[in-house]
């Protein structure tokens, strides 16, 4: 796709769009000590300019909307989000000069509120008891007004395609196609859908494992409990070879462990993904098999430092 980067090729420095994607693949060495031939690797998505994996989907959605002129002078980008996608839209809106309106539950963390305000996004707060549902209903209601381009990350095909063309290709390159297992949490499901499709095309033997919270009421920010949820249009459960459920408390413990033993301050959903990846590592090791397990670490811990679990 034509990006600002390409138009400005040859100029020194980089734009916000140039800095999205091509994230490092970090080795989590301590977790698999004593498991010969088994490694866990994580895509460090917090190195994206907006601080999360959501920069990928948001930039793909925005570029597609600009190309189709759905987002054009006089129109505002509108979406429902509980956090990182909103930050990505707000950052892109500031950088590419389009206005952004976000609907979100008022119990998002104070750090997120301040980041969004700093980027100048317009926020419509919704009832925290209704979770993302309330935000989505509000966005759908506002979307009737033609001044809005409703980005609808849950149904927008550009979401998973960003991972098919980006994250999935990067994982194949960075592991020299030696990846044997891919693990990712389900939120909009865009990351899992896009990466799993690309990896299965490259090698159908690669095991793709989706992960979700173990309860409809959980603390895994950005993730969804499927059996009690309304499913996004872009989600195809048949793509997963397996699905694992992770307890919030196990993710909290892993976040503390990664901070203290790997020197990685990751967010709660990233820690949950590592819990699932480690389960796979233990199973493979117990069977005497070698494995290269890749997961996605959606963001860093900085937006969750006020959570109580760090002190436990």
């Amino acid at each position: 796709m034509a990006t600002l980067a390409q138009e400005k090729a040859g100029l020194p420095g980089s734009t916000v769009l140039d800095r999205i994607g091509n994230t490092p693949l970090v080795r989590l060495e301590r977790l698999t000590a004593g498991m010969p031939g088994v490694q866990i690797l994580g895509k460090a998505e917090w190195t994206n300019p907006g601080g999360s994996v959501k920069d990928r989907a948001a930039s793909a959605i925005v570029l597609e909307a600009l190309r189709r002129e759905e987002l054009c002078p006089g129109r505002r980008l509108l979406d429902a989000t509980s956090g990182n996608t909103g930050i990505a839209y707000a950052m892109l809106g500031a950088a590419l000069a389009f206005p952004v309106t976000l609907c979100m539950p008022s119990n998002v963390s104070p750090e997120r509120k301040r980041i969004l305000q700093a980027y100048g996004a317009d926020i419509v707060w919704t009832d925290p008891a209704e979770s993302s549902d309330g935000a989505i209903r509000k966005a759908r209601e506002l979307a009737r007004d033609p001044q809005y381009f409703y980005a609808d990350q849950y149904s927008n095909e550009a979401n998973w395609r960003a991972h098919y063309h980006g994250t999935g290709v990067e994982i194949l390159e960075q592991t020299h196609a030696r990846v044997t297992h891919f693990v990712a949490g389900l939120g909009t499901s865009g990351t899992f859908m896009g990466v799993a499709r690309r990896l299965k095309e490259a090698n159908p033997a690669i095991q793709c494992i989706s992960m979700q919270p173990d309860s409809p009421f959980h603390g895994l920010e950005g993730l969804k409990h499927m059996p009690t949820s309304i499913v996004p249009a872009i989600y195809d459960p048949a793509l997963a070879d397996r699905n694992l459920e992770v307890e919030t408390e196990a993710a909290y413990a892993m976040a503390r462990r990664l901070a203290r033993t790997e020197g990685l301050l990751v967010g709660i959903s990233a820690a949950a993904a590592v819990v699932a990846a480690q389960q796979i590592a233990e199973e493979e090791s117990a069977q005497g098999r070698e494995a290269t397990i890749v997961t996605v670490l959606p963001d860093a811990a900085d937006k969750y430092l006020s959570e109580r679990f760090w002190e436990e």
Partner: protein
Amino acid sequence: MKIEIPTPLRAYTSNQSAIDVDAATVAEAVSGLTTRYPDFQRHLYTPDGKLRSFVNLYLNDEDVRYLPEREETAVRDSDTLSIIPSIAGGCWPGLTVQA
């Protein structure tokens, strides 16, 4: 008093968004809820009986963890207790509803 049920947990209250309980304290109110709907116990509390750390109880607009008497705080019939996860998550928009 009234207990407001968050959307993700309404599956356990036959989709009721609020229930009424007779209680003198916050603890009695929650106990009334978990007695009537036993599934709530494991969603709100750890196996050793501690409120899960991402679960916040609000008495009217006050976080119960920061009230001087916490769960032993006295309640009146006109009070409302809300159960709010400390982070925003929730249900999906889209086409299909799974069981």
